[in-house]
């Protein structure tokens, strides 16, 4: 797959010191770090405060904080951003601190957090802390629990993290538009005891959907069902980084759903248990094995597994249109339609016309025909054995031997032991069994 998926490990990728809005507030508001790249950043080892095992945000990053008299202070800036959804496609979105999704906020059960939210949009906003138990006035519902944050203003949220778990944040002011424009981020509260629910690899992403007409850049915010960009952290295959896991690690994958439909997330090669929801940790006795877990709209789920089976394992939403990029949902089916002679007639009028689809649509992943600006092929990607024919919510869990702790770099393709790859049968083929004559087929 592509080299852009390699982690950018340089500290310089996180730029500190971007805009503070008011000079009055300058003395008291912490700096707001910005992010300029869409690749997965390495976990942020907590430099101060309570210790915890950090998560890795898929194609994202964690927001640094500052400690201030026992308060953990974060600064989010709501603003327009340009998000690369995959190489060759940029979306004009709204997000936080330079990207959509906004940075993951990580803290620890019992932390007193103070989150500054500066609004650099042209309309008011708020931030809702989805799943967090907090004072009603900190819940971030514009008009109901607080006045909206006007453009140019900074509001501050203060609350104590009473429980650990997997959460998210998103606007609750003009939220239909603001979420359709990509405003959201993950929020992880780690257990006070780092050994509770401890895993070696902890990934998180949130699912969102956009309707970006090929050739355009801004999502159509009024679309309700017919989206064409099914994203994990505002990325689509082949732009979604792999989940890199050392063989034998205990791994957790957390995800939330901010789209308008459910997503059955299916991982190959393993069965796993759902261990956490946005309601909290699932007691051991209540867990059951799964290979697919459905994540309904507005929910969060986390599943865990012991990464004992090496390989490059697909992980994807099981709605097959959700593993496609932009496609025409009303294109008629041409399977089995013989077109050769008609094609001649058509190419007289449309010289670059090529017949497609009479045998299926797999051609699409092979042919590299020119497309409209700023869009991606419906199905694409190259694996070690050929075209992967995917798009949208698709990635690979790479369980390889000998991956160092803290190393999330793409290790390349799995090297299959000899005789463990499906191959063409070269032996004798038995005669097919025929239906008895005169009988009904």
């Amino acid at each position, binding site marked *: 797959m592509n080299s852009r998926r390699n982690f950018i490990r340089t500290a310089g990728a996180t730029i500190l010191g971007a805009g503070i809005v008011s000079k009055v507030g300058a003395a008291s508001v912490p700096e707001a770090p910005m992010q300029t790249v869409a690749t997965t950043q390495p976990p942020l080892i907590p430099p101060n405060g309570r210790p915890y095992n950090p998560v890795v945000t898929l194609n994202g990053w964690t927001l640094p904080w500052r400690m201030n008299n026992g308060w953990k202070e974060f600064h989010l800036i709501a603003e327009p951003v340009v998000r690369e959804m995959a190489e060759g496609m940029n979306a004009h979105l709204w997000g936080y601190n330079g990207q959509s999704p906004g940075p993951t906020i990580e803290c620890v059960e019992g932390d007193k957090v103070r989150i500054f939210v500066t609004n650099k949009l042209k309309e008011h906003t708020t931030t809702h802390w989805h799943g967090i138990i907090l004072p009603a006035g900190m819940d971030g519902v514009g008009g109901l629990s607080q006045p909206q944050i006007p453009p140019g203003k900074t509001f501050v949220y203060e609350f104590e993290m009473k429980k650990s778990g997997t959460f998210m944040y998103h606007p609750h002011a003009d939220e239909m538009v603001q979420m359709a424009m990509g405003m959201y981020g993950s929020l992880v509260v780690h257990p006070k005891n780092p050994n509770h629910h401890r895993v070696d690899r902890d990934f998180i992403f949130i699912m969102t959907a956009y309707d970006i007409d090929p050739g355009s850049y801004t999502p159509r915010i009024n679309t309700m069902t017919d989206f064409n960009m099914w994203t994990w952290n505002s990325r689509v295959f082949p732009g979604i980084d792999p989940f890199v896991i050392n063989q034998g690690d205990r791994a957790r994958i957390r995800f939330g759903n901010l789209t308008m439909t459910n997503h059955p997330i299916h991982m190959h090669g393993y069965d796993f248990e759902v261990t956490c929801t946005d309601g909290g940790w699932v007691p051991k006795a209540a867990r059951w094995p799964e290979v697919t877990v459905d994540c309904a709209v507005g929910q969060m789920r986390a599943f865990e597994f012991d990464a004992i089976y090496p390989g490059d394992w697909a992980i994807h939403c099981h709605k097959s249109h959700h593993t496609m990029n932009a496609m025409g949902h009303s294109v*008629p089916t041409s399977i*089995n339609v013989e077109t050769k002679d008609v094609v001649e007639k*058509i190419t007289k009028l449309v010289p670059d016309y090529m017949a497609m689809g009479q045998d299926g649509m797999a051609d699409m992943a092979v*042919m590299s025909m020119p497309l409209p600006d700023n869009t991606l092929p*419906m199905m694409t990607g190259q694996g070690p054995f050929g075209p992967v024919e995917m798009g949208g919510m698709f990635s690979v869990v790479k369980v390889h031997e000998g991956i160092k702790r803290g190393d999330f770099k793409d290790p390349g393709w799995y090297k299959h032991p000899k005789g463990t790859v499906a191959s063409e049968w070269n032996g004798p083929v038995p005669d097919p069994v025929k239906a008895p004559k005169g009988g009904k087929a």
Partner: protein
Amino acid sequence: MITNKKQPSTKLRLLAGITLVALLGGCATFSPDGGFNSVESVAKEHLGKEVKWVKTDEDRQKVYAQVTAILAKPLTADDAVQVALLNNAGLQATYSNLGIAEADLVQAGRLHNPGFSFQRLEKANVFEYERKFIFDVFGLLTMPTRTALEQRRFDQTKRRVTGEVMRIAADTRRAYLDAVAAQQTARYMDDVRDAAEASAQLADRMAKVGNWSKLDQARQQVFYVEVMSQVARSHQAARSEREKLTRLMGLWGAGAQFTLSERLPDLPAAPREINNLEQTAMSQRMDVQMAKQEVEGLAKSLGLTKATRFINVLDVSYLNKSTAGEPNQTGYEVELQIPIFDWGDAKVAKAEAMYMQAVNRVAEIAVNARSQTRGAYSAYRTAYDISRHYRDDLVPLRKRISEENLLRYNGMLIGTFELLADAREQVLSVNAYISTLREFWLADTNLKMALLGAGTDSGMSTSGDTAMPGESSGGH
């Protein structure tokens, strides 16, 4: 010329006078070109074309050879005009008007033949002989006037014939543009039909393999059938426009098998700018010139009427009256009306009224001509701008839409049917451009004709038979 014939010597002098008159009359003979030179030179100057008055078999052969040579290759608009000017029989018929008018002119330049009458009367065995030598002296006197009048008519006929040449040229050019545009449109409609046919074929197969319902299939079929009738109509239009052109070029048989050029001429890089548009029209337009000439002529005849208000039909007769047994009486007779009852003022008033009428008609024609010229230029500019707009904006935009649609097809964002529907749209926009181009060239032709005052709605039709302008001149 009125002579008292008392002595033989005066008789001789009279004969000498008659001879002189005959010689003068001899000036009004037929011209070698029959008045055709002016028609030829105008056709050359304003149309850049050759005209030919076919009078002999040799002429006919020449024209045939010329026309055949032109028809051998695909016709341009100029070729078509040239063929029509050489070959249109109606035009040849018009040329004969020149002959007729010239004959009238020559006639006007000749005196009536002198007359001689002999009377023998008997009264109670007395025989009276009266011999009269009649000579149309007044005809002689008025001959310059009459000749001038007929000359004017002859000139007008020349202009009228020239106008007819212009009209045929303009009509042919228009018919040519219509025919080529219709042919081009028909050809593009074939492309539209191909697209519709491909859609219908695909639809059939979609239904056959079970991908489409009969409803969807029928919808594509309906469309195809509709397109087929449009295509048939476009071909019929092409044929009928071509026939119009064939008639104007006077062709039949093998001659009617000519080939038109593939496409209309391109839009010029820039529209024509005409300085002093109206002055140009005033100095060139034939209707204006003709009207002016009429007024000048009427001014002359008004003067004559004023001068001869008391003279009616005035025959001056040479009398030779002899009574038997008496010496011959000779003398002459002049008849003069005595203006007691009719002082001729009514006649003068009528002439004056006719003159003023013509003066106002000239004014009207001039006003109309200016307006028509401005109108024609404005139509020309508008047609140019529209056609350029189609060529530079609309067609490229359509093309871009098609390109983008192909990209969308590549991305499986749209299907073949949408692509084909778009291809049809693109073809139709090219057709629409052809139609604007045709309108531009028509407007161009109309402008040229407006500047010459020929072939437009005012054009030559004001001329009529304008010898007596009171009856027919000036507008419609």
